[in-house]
């Protein structure tokens, strides 16, 4: 009997050996790079082109939220070379000493990225050492002009009783609280108890008017006319307006969230040079352009912006807003363990109410 267990053990271990062997043989001629990005956040063609031009094999994985990405990256079950988290998550990673400084000499194409975006990045990466912007945008209100009385310019419309059962809210803590905090004129990074309490009560009060709390489905529901008003990311707004011309996107006058998703390299990355080659490739204007056309999220690549053929999109205030025209724009900041828990608990109170 013991022999049999031995045999099984040997079989299992040789199987795992074989599997790791497969991993090695998948190396490109110039090694590999393991990329961890948001779902549907790149044109697959861009990856093929990168592999063809550089001979580096790309292993591509996707995540849904920053919060799913973080523990997976920390656990180290897969050692990623390039990741594309959002602003506040980058700040958290920097604070926890998880990111490597990027060698900008290896990324000459970085000149294509507009300096204002690096300026904006300083809110979470103060010395611009760890991150290179990939996409950016705002959060605003998308409304169907055939279903509302007058043009909308304020978050307050989300509390207007005439739109009962016609409002779509974002189903995530920070985005939902951003709306309520901005409505009351507070900072969206506040840790002030009374301000947060006010925001929480506003969200509870709003709940009976809300048709559904959704994330990606805002897109489909707005296109099909299921709801009149929705809170949406600007990148999604471009796509929805293309599908349904009755839709209008506005940045509310009380201000909003300007977010940036940036490429970073983890400290434990094995293929750091390949990672830099990948980021450099993504910063090339023609590549940034095909990615923009595929995912419709605004690119900070000013050289790529100039290449956009469609005049309406090149000058679109949704895709490339003149941020100096708006007041009270902010970028999310990491709130620390306790701050995050505080927000989560308040959000739970709203959701179970």
């Amino acid at each position: 009997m013991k022999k049999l267990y031995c045999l099984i053990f040997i079989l299992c271990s040789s199987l795992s050996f074989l599997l790791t062997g497969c991993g090695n043989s998948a190396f490109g001629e110039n090694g590999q790079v393991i990329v961890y990005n948001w779902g549907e956040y790149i044109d697959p063609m861009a990856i093929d082109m990168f592999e063809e031009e550089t001979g580096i094999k790309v292993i591509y994985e996707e995540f849904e939220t920053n919060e799913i990405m973080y523990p997976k990256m920390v656990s180290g079950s897969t050692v990623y070379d390039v990741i594309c988290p959002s602003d506040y998550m980058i700040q958290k990673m920097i604070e926890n000493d998880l990111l490597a400084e990027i060698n900008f000499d290896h990324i000459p194409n970085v000149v294509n990225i507009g300096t204002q975006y690096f300026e904006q990045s300083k809110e979470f990466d103060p010395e611009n050492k760890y991150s290179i912007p990939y996409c950016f945008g705002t959060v605003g209100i998308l409304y169907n002009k055939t279903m509302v009385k007058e043009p909308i310019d304020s978050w307050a419309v989300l509390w207007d009783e005439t739109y009962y059962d016609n409002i779509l809210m974002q189903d995530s803590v920070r985005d939902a609280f951003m709306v309520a905090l901005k409505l009351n004129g507070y900072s969206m990074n506040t840790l002030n108890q009374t301000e947060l309490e006010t925001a929480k009560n506003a969200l509870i009060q709003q709940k009976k008017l809300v048709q559904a709390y959704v994330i990606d489905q805002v897109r489909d529901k707005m296109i099909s006319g299921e709801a009149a008003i929705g809170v949406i990311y600007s990148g999604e707004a471009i796509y929805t307006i293309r599908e349904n011309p009755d839709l209008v996107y506005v940045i509310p006058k009380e201000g909003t969230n300007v977010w940036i998703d940036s490429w970073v390299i983890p400290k434990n990355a094995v293929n750091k040079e390949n990672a830099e080659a990948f980021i450099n490739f993504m910063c090339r204007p023609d590549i940034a352009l095909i990615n923009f056309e595929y995912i419709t999220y605004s690119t900070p690549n000013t050289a790529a912006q100039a290449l956009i053929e469609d005049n309406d999109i090149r000058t679109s205030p949704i895709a490339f807003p003149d941020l100096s025209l708006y007041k009270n724009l902010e970028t999310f900041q990491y709130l620390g363990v306790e701050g995050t828990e505080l927000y989560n608990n308040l959000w739970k109170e709203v959701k179970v109410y």
Partner: protein
Amino acid sequence: MNKKKLLGTPYFIWSTLFILIPLGIVFYYGLTDESGAFTLNNVMAISSPGHAKSLWISLGLSLVSTLICLFLAYPLAMILCSGDHSLQTGFLSSKSNAAHKNIIVLIFILPMWMNFLLRTLAWQTLLEKTGVINNILAFLHLPALKIINTPYAIILGMVYNFLPFMVLPVYNSLIKIDPNVIHAARDLGANEFQVFTKITLPLTTPGIISGITMVFIPALTTFLISKLLGGGKILLIGNVIEEEFTQASNWHLGSGLSIVLMMFIIFNMVVSAVFDKDGKGGTL
């Protein structure tokens, strides 16, 4: 060591890797805090008003949908069985009866070939304000159906998805009843109602109990149905746990609440084991 144990080895390895070890990890996270020290706080967190409320809602909704499933499934199982019995005993045996039964089985089984997620998403498209059902109703000048994003839609989703788990055990126990027992009861002067309450119902109790278990447990733990059909407005305990992992990244609390949920499941299974000592019900 005998041959049977030997043949069980692959399953033993499988269950260790994919059931026991993950369970151990859940218990480890559930009973420790951020620093790795032992604590019961994650489990006790169920008593906080928010968590308790979502647990009550989950229990309530899954109880209602289990009952609806039972009342839908029992007659259906009897219809499916009656065909069989009449064939066995020679009464009313006709080809059309068998064909009739096959069609019922087909209608019943057909949707199960589709993915669970797709079926639930389909309900969303059907029930939406601008959805298929409301378009038809509007065309017929009938009032609109407003159940999407309410608890009713969640119950509908649960009943729809878990009904087969009720029908099959009940059918299994019905088909095992010896028709002669029923004939004997009739010979002794029992009317239909008495036959049902004195013979059929007691003999199918194990099937009913295991059907209840098999519907109640997935209904209690679901987070997808409430997310898709409840519009995120009704937080079931499954949703609370899911959000602890995906949004709040608090694995400790998520695991702690899972342990509480596991206790409910174990309780339910113990109850069904007591009723089903000789293993007559069960079995899919």
